[in-house]
């Protein structure tokens, strides 16, 4: 098949702008060949080049004493003591998952796993953040079932436990779901591998699956809006092969035990192109590739297709000269091919051959890291977003008990058991606390240490107030890991937004980045990796800003961790933090009254930090027995969740003083920076004293009792429910959506 003639129009069809076309002509000093045009289009796509987000991402704090590798590599690396480090990242697979939920989600997991093991880390935990349309949207059930099965089947087969995440439903995702996959791996701090193509004459090896016409132009698809009809024009969907991934993982890690690899990188979006250009770009070297040697799955493939294919389960390795044989040996033990397809040069150019012709000859630098950078126009909405909080009469229409059952049984807040029983949570036998708590806790064998992990974002808050929403996402993540007794140490993010060419979207983006940055600064959690997904928009309707935060915390002594649940009768229940009954942005108003009310709860990051330090102290000193943060659904939902310990029916009797607040505000308000902790009665003075020293308000609100949750306000019983009933409602919440 002859290549089409390269014209300006063809460049437009590739998603390039007129300005970018001129730039290409200037860089090359001639018109590009068809494969070169393909390379520019993917390398300069939003997905690969971050052209709209780059100037904003610079504002993230990215350094810290623990950071061994910040943004810019395949994943971030943070030191966790005793010579160990963790490597983690989160990535979106939103568009592919909407088109084909099972394969889209599965290959999303595959991609993020490769990003982590390419750094030399053995993946030990997966998490995922899923955002679907409204629960009763006709597509939601199919998408939910497909995505969950896809994530499970892939991670289960590779043998990585999936230990947590979040599931959110909101109409803003009706036409654009979000699938964000997170992986954390473990490595020795002095054995980090990077994507460098250095050392002139070193061989470039292709390892893993053969190349087919899979997902050609997936990267540019992730950089364009959906419209009626794109569902038809879709490129070939990629199918995941988790068995091959497992072999690839083992082969790479085995090879990494020796001194053979100079640089390594997975072939993700934009496949062979992005891996070779990025590796040469980082090293400031050149690269020569011979496409005839690329293992092919289909007949008649062209250079363009070979360069742009997104076939899964492939990696590129630059090995030390003369050690190719060893690479082949290890890969053949794992029944995989390793083929030398080129070598590192000192020309600073990518020279790519096909049947003896040089089909690509372009400078690496300008393509890989001098991609266009845009400071796109930003504009705040003319009218602040959100409705007012309804008056007391409206709130009084639902009794507190009904409201509590309504919230914990709502698809948004109910148990995720249906989801996570489809995930292998315990393979590798490191899972100390799996899904169902505030944060997952995964131990590091051979030490007393563990990591605590949480994914968080409240898109409604980000919509109402992108700055605060971004800051809250970080604060909640950090609070979740602190409730497990962990110290928050670093963050990865996945920033899901609408069309960046819209000033209001760009404003949301910039504000979210500022909020995330500020919270990360105060909480001492640098951003070490991340991902941006723009164009989550169908027919002009964009999603709410959704900056998913992946928080990583460190538990130094896993025996001094906390769980979220009430367990022991007679324990005192203490509410830490201040309750002002803030209903703006609450789940209560949204889920029960269909009101997205402003403003979002204020966030005092210094107080947040004080609370989190206190929680860690209570855990370390073994003063507290449990800690659970108050987030969606407020104090009452937090209390109900704390009653739902596996295999126990401990409840609580809470006696609250209204302080003049409406019951709904007191029970369901979502004031930030609060947690419910329990302790032995004799430790109560120590808890209160520690809180006092930390300037964290603390109120004794009740006792752990068997079998029932009762809540009295000013002496009046407002809630009196059997724990078994709460459990039943909570477990049944997803049935109408998933069942």
């Amino acid at each position, binding site marked *: 098949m002859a290549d089409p003639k390269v014209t300006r129009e063809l460049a437009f069809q590739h998603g390039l702008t007129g300005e970018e076309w001129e730039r290409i002509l200037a860089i090359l000093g001639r018109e590009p060949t068809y494969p070169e045009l393909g390379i520019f289009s993917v390398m300069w796509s939003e997905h690969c080049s971050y052209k709209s987000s780059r100037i904003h991402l610079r504002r993230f704090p990215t350094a810290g004493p623990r950071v061994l590798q910040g943004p810019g590599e395949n994943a971030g690396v943070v030191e966790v003591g005793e010579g160990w480090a963790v490597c983690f990242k989160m990535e979106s697979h939103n568009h592919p998952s909407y088109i084909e939920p099972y394969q889209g989600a599965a290959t999303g997991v595959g991609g993020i796993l490769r990003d982590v093991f390419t750094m030399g880390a053995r993946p030990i935990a997966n998490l995922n953040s899923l955002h679907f349309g409204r629960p009763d949207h006709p597509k939601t059930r199919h998408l939910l079932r497909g995505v969950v099965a896809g994530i*499970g089947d892939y991670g*289960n*087969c590779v*043998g990585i436990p999936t230990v947590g995440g979040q599931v959110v439903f909101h109409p803003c995702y009706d036409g654009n779901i979000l699938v964000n996959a997170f992986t954390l791996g473990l490595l020795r701090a002095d054995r980090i591998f990077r994507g460098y193509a250095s050392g002139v004459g070193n061989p470039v090896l292709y390892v893993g699956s053969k190349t087919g016409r899979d997902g050609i132009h997936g990267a540019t698809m992730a950089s364009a809006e959906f419209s009626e009809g794109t569902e038809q024009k879709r490129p070939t969907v990629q199918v995941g092969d988790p*068995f*091959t991934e497992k072999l690839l993982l083992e082969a790479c890690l085995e090879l990494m035990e020796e001194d053979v690899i100079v640089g390594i990188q997975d072939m993700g979006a934009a496949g062979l192109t992005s891996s070779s250009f990025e590796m040469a770009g980082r090293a400031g070297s050149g690269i020569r590739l011979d496409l005839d040697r690329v293992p092919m799955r289909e007949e008649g493939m062209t250079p363009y297709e070979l360069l742009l294919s997104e076939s899964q389960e492939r990696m590129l390795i630059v090995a030390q000269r003369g050690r190719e044989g060893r690479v082949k040996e290890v890969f053949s033990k794992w029944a995989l091919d390793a083929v030398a397809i080129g070598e590192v040069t000192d020309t600073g150019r990518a020279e790519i051959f096909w049947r003896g012709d040089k089909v690509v000859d372009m400078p690496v630098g300008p393509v890989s890291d001098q991609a266009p950078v845009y400071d796109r126009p930003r504009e705040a909405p003319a009218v602040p977003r959100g409705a007012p909080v309804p008056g007391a009469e409206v709130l009084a229409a639902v009794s507190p008990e009904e409201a509590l059952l309504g919230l914990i049984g709502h698809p948004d807040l109910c148990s995720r058991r249906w989801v996570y029983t489809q995930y*292998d949570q315990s393979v590798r036998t490191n899972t100390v606390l799996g899904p169902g708590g505030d944060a997952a806790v995964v131990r590091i064998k051979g030490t007393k240490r563990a990591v605590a992990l949480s994914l968080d974002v409240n898109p409604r808050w980000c919509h109402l107030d992108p700055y605060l929403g971004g800051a809250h996402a970080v604060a909640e993540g950090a609070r979740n890991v602190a409730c497990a007794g962990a110290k928050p140490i670093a963050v990865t993010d996945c920033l899901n937004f609408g069309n960046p060419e819209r000033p209001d979207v760009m404003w949301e983006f910039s504000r979210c980045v500022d909020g995330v940055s500020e919270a990360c600064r105060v909480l001492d959690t640098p951003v070490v990796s991340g991902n941006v997904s723009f164009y989550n928009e169908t027919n002009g309707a964009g999603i709410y800003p959704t900056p998913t935060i992946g928080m990583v915390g460190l538990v130094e002594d896993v025996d001094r961790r906390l769980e979220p649940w009430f367990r022991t009768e007679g324990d005192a229940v203490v509410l830490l933090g201040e309750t002002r009954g803030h209903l703006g942005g609450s789940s209560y108003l949204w889920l029960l009254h269909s009101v997205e009310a402003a403003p979002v709860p204020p966030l005092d990051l210094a107080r947040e930090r004080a609370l989190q330090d206190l929680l860690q102290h209570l855990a370390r000193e073994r003063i507290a027995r449990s800690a659970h943060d108050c987030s969606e659904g407020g104090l009452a939902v937090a209390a109900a969740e704390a009653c739902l310990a596996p295999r126990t029916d401990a409840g609580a009797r809470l006696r609250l003083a209204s302080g003049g607040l409406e019951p709904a505000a007191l029970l369901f308000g979502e004031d930030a920076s609060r947690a419910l902790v329990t302790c032995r009665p004799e430790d109560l003075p120590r808890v209160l004293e520690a809180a006092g020293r930390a300037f964290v308000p603390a109120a004794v609100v009740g006792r752990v009792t068997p079998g029932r949750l009762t809540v009295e306000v000013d002496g009046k019983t407002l809630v009196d429910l059997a724990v078994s009933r709460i459990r039943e409602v909570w477990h049944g919440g997803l049935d109408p959506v998933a069942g």
Partner: protein
Amino acid sequence: MNIAVVEFLGSNCDHDAEQWSLRLSAARSRMVWYTERDLSWADLVILPGGFSYGDYLRCGAMAARTPVMEAVIAHAGKGGLVLGICNGFQILCEVGILPGALLRNQTLTFLCQDVYLRCETSASPFTSGIAEGSLLRVPIAHGDGNYFADPETLRRLNGEGRVAFRYAAPDGSLSPEWNPNGSAEAIAGILNEGRNVLGMMPHPERASEPLMGSSDGAALLRSALQALGS
């Protein structure tokens, strides 16, 4: 005691099984690659869980046809101990050392959760230290654990006391609600005729120390150790 943990392409609970063995101080364990043919040195062979060959075609089908399985058959034939966990159980059925087959879970989904196992017989090297009727809390993690055998086989298994474990309620009773995958007669694990081979879907190695949430699974390996007189 010398323990062999067999590694197939795609196995992913192999190291969990190895570490489980290593926690028993009297045990020495070694990983055995699927191409090896000699297991004469081993006292106990563990076929680990976890997606050999991706569970493609049928779970355990391809692993059952690897060279090492001839050695496993020989070892079992001589009365050597073999423990198949999850995918290992599926492999033992595929190769015919144990009767029956494991079908897709009744829910048609993968299931990972804690279950209660009722010990049905103490008369085996793996269960000698576990009282009949007592319960173990151990996780399952599988998509195809729905035990199937023809009525005649089931009759024999029951008659010969070769059902080792059944899925049970926390009070030890049997009911469909507590049989997570729809297995025939709630069967979770079975023995061969010689009682030296046990296949089971649940993962005892994932319930073998307090940090994992349960230590109930440790009893299996401890029993085996005792049976081997070490």
